[in-house]
């Protein structure tokens, strides 16, 4: 009888089956790839990405066209000059209108980006996919971070594409009216970068809220409510009751209002006598928006870790 080798001995035991893929470990890079596949295998992603780019470019073209009509209408121009002289209206020539026309679509892109970011996580809960996800990669926080990275990259890239297209389609009309974006002006550069940053932070906030609520409709309603509905209601109240200081303070700390300062400082916007509403400094405003995003994500991280899937 031959000597008992370790192999033979192992054969004697009721052997534990070992997968032939047992050396295929999970890793963060692989999770990113999985999240990438998840994202682009859903139609909703393509819709949201397409809508974001079309909104940014289309609105830019629309605003440029309107501006072109206004500037080439002698009656309106005469009226505006009169208003400016009496101090009632805004003197258009004081602002770089071209850059505003190019970036203004970001406010509408916030809507689509928020929907996209919320759904990145809530569609997993609504479909039950989250159980497959957490079975494959049980370290839940990493799933959230992988999604965060994918959402950040996607949002940043489509914002840049949206802005580039917005600049491109409005170029002929802006050129005609001598309103082209001045790339040597640091304020205008800040607007362009700011639009991208604000969209990314909006996506962060939306992902955080989606992770906390786990519900598509609830998540979208919460984010859009806070970004669109609350500011418009509060804005009107502030306008009619400017002496309520605490209300103005709340208003300027709202995420959309705070974030806007880095893209289009309030004075450049309609909103009645913009000067009566105090605003945060551009980068302070962005910091406030970022704080909202980080707090929402922290809450999301806590919930994803603690609550049953």
């Amino acid at each position, binding site marked *: 009888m031959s000597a008992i080798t370790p192999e033979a001995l192992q054969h004697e035991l009721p052997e534990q089956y070992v997968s032939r893929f047992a050396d295929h*470990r999970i890793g963060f890079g692989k999770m990113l790839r999985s999240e990438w596949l998840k994202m682009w295998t859903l139609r909703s992603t393509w819709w949201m990405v397409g809508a974001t780019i079309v909104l940014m470019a289309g609105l830019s073209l629309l605003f440029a066209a309107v501006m072109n009509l206004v500037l080439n209408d002698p009656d309106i121009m005469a009226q505006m000059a009169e208003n400016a002289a009496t101090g009632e209206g805004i003197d258009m020539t004081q602002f770089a209108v071209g850059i505003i026309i190019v970036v203004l679509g970001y406010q509408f892109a916030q809507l689509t980006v928020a929907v996209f970011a919320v759904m990145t996580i809530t569609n997993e809960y609504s479909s039950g996919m989250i*159980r497959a996800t957490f079975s494959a990669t049980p370290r839940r926080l990493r799933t959230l971070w992988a999604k965060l990275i994918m959402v950040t990259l996607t949002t940043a890239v489509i914002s840049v594409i949206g802005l580039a297209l917005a600049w491109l389609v409005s170029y002929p009309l802006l050129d005609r009216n001598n309103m082209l974006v001045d790339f040597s002006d640091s304020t205008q550069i800040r607007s362009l970068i700011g639009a991208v940053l604000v969209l990314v932070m909006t996506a962060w906030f939306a992902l955080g809220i989606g992770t906390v609520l786990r519900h598509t409709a609830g998540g979208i309603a919460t984010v859009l409510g806070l970004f669109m509905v609350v500011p418009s209601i509060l804005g009107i109240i502030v306008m009619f009751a400017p002496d309520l200081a605490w209300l103005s303070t709340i208003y300027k700390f709202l995420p959309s209002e705070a974030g806007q300062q880095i893209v289009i400082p309030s004075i450049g916007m309609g909103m009645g006598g913009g000067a009566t509403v105090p605003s945060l400094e551009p980068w302070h405003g962005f910091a406030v928006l970022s704080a909202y995003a980080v707090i929402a994500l922290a809450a999301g991280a806590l919930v994803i870790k603690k609550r049953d*899937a």
Partner: protein
Amino acid sequence: MIEARNLAKNYGDKRAVDNISFKVQPGIVTGFLGPNGAGKSTTMRMIMGLDKPTSGTVYVNGKPYAQHKSPLTQVGALLEARAIHPGRTARQHLRVLAATHSFPISRVDEVIDLTGLTSVADKRVGGFSLGMGQRLGIASALLGNPSTLIFDEPVNGLDPEGVLWVRNLARYLAGQGRTVFLSSHLMSEMALTADHLIVIGKGKILADMPVQELVESASKRYVRVATPGVAALSAAVQAAGGVVVVPAPSADDATARHAANVGVIEVSGLEAPDIGELALTSGVVLHELTPISSTLEEAYMELTADSVEYHTIDVNTREHTTTEPSYTAAGAPKAPAEADMPVAHLSNEGGQR
């Protein structure tokens, strides 16, 4: 190998899984059997780390599932038919999962072929039938070629051919030395598929034994005898080699027969005619002489009768089909929801027989 120790889970103040301990061994099919709401799915979700136990631990192959470096090669789970986004195709779904472990693309095709999904692999899951969804769930579970498989109600929604397929698959996988843990609420299905059974009811383990053992205990036959002369008859039966068991009194026994001083015994080892002869020779009057043999299904019903979450009411008699001894009902706390449920009756925590 799955090992649960004192595992418990509360949802609010409801105890879904009540301090259970069990082992699921490799190389055999272990059935996890219990009525709806008994805690099967909750237990399986806890094994997968999806639900956090209120107390206790559950290990898979020596450690908590979440601590494995290659989770899908350790455990493959079919938890619910639709843990799948309806907007993706079957192939896309599997590729998403395969990417997390960088399994080769060819493995995705393998499990698609293995589960018979080849013709629908590039169709959106949203259009799948329940059975196809179930097959995709099984394909997902098999993806990592795992050493442990957990299938929660795998035959739900499958046609007879599919049921047979799952049965053979489970047996084949166990035959390779894998741990196969299969839940069902159907005893008949489990009797055909499983080697070992863990029966759960109301979050507690009611039985943990080889199927063969359960079958044997179920197929015991006995004769129910009601007589005023219990002592005399028992002695005669035992002298003739029979075994006498005095069952716990049931509600109707207690009321109707108590006055007449009639006792009930269950005799095994002797046939009804023999007992009749013995009664005659001992001069004992018989009120009842009923041969009883229970099927496996009945044994299961008997085992879980007290732990069925929702008792049906027999429409003919307007009484509960599962008769509960009145003495167990008396002391137990009543569930507050009980009064609000017109048809389904939330049973209270009765003691096990």
